[in-house]
């Protein structure tokens, strides 16, 4: 079942095209990783999917009553802004203490409850944002570069958590990754974007081979995988794409 379908979607910032004729759909329960160079329209694509950004052309079709849980790109919450993790979970709408507690338990960080958001480490903050996103059991979980700033074991642990949540909640996952080649191994599809969809496919799960073990380090428990891009044209990124 398709939750969100994009048909010939184009996105512009002022007059500059960011995305051209993108066609793809998010199916229930699948994990999609979107990779691409800086400025390739990854975040724009995610924002079109959440509805935060209006498309300049084409159609975005969402199944009725679709619930989206969103984990934004790393936020900077400064210490001039007092906010406990508990209060953060009530953004934008108030949630019950029980729902907040359940969400923190589910991401394995109940101890964050009374902590100030500005004082969390990168990994703790990601978990708090994830907890916020899964309140209300979303149909799709969308994450914008969630592992930016995490080291490899940190990324691997985060990906494992995402995979567990997907199995538990049954939600689809759409994740933008800043890493072109190393992706979450549980991804059903990897989409390589550069203004348009360049290529897509399943990642190579190679974590058992010793040479890749050496590449990924220990303790990642097979959460990381390689994605081989099957397009051979080179991209320059200062012009809109058309081929």
């Amino acid at each position: 079942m398709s939750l969100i379908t994009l048909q010939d979607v184009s996105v512009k910032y002022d007059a500059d095209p960011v995305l051209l004729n993108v066609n793809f759909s998010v199916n229930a329960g699948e994990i999609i990783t979107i990779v691409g160079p800086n400025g390739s329209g990854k975040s724009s694509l995610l924002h079109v999917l959440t509805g935060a950004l209006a498309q300049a052309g084409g159609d975005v079709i969402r199944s009725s009553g679709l619930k989206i849980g969103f984990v934004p790109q790393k936020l900077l919450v400064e210490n001039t802004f007092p906010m406990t993790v508990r209060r953060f979970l009530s953004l934008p709408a108030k949630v019950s203490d029980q729902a907040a507690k359940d969400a923190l338990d589910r991401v394995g960080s109940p101890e964050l409850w009374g902590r100030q958001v500005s004082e969390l480490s990168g990994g703790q903050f990601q978990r708090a944002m994830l907890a916020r996103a899964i309140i209300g059991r979303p149909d799709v979980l969308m994450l914008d570069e969630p592992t930016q700033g995490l080291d490899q074991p940190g990324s691997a642990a985060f990906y494992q958590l995402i995979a567990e949540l997907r199995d538990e909640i049954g939600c689809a996952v759409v994740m933008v990754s800043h890493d072109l080649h190393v992706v979450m191994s549980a991804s059903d599809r990897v989409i390589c974007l550069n203004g348009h969809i360049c290529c897509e496919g399943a990642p190579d799960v190679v974590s058992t081979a010793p040479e890749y073990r050496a590449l990924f380090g220990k303790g990642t428990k097979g959460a990381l995988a390689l994605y081989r891009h099957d397009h051979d044209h080179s991209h320059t990124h200062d012009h809109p794409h058309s081929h």
Partner: protein
Amino acid sequence: MLEEFIIRATLAGLAVALATGVLGCFVIWRKMAYFGDALSHASILGVAGGLALGLSSFIGVLAIAVVISILLFVLDRRWYATDTILGVLSHSALAFGLIAANLMSGVRISLEALLFGDILAVSWADLWVIWGGALAVVSVISWRWSRLIAMTVGYDLAASAGINGRREQLVLTLTLALTIAISVKVVGALLVTAFLIIPAATGRRLASTPESMALASVAVGAVSVIVGMAVSYEFDTLAGPTMVASAAILFAVAQVIPKRY
């Protein structure tokens, strides 16, 4: 027995503490201090213009603050950085305002009252306007509160929940314009920003959530007004600066309290 003008002055100060306390939090969170400063300096043109046109100084200040807010909103980052545009707009308004005020000075305008406020001259009519404005500011902010908080945490986060960050920023700038319009008469163009920043910065030390910071900030502002008025009455000091000085002392005291949040 307290004299009536003291009661009026204190009530006016409390209204200002209410509006600046709530809005001051956003000024701190969203780094709008320079914006507040710029608007309050430009208000001098508003006072002079308002009186020259035979309108109240409140209407004049509100008009100039709203015009600058909207110009800034429209021009933002198109050709210059925000603070550059703000500097051009507000200092131009300040310069023209000072010329106008000087031409009219002695007749209807006292420069000292413009810069440092004239809280003791607040009339009952002024008081209605000031309280009306303060309650309007607090109502709008309360109504938009959860959106404003979401936008303060992050534009992306807010946008994913259907909140337009730019629109909420406009809500903030317009309520700030109104706050400055009601505050200039009370604390003066030079000290409005102090009332926006010092109570809120003090409130930060006492609060663990945005809501408790807003309440603490209003409370600190209110105590500053009452203490400031009492000291000013007793020792015959300038009322506006004495209230700000009281807030500054409370800020210093709050820094001594061990940080809990």
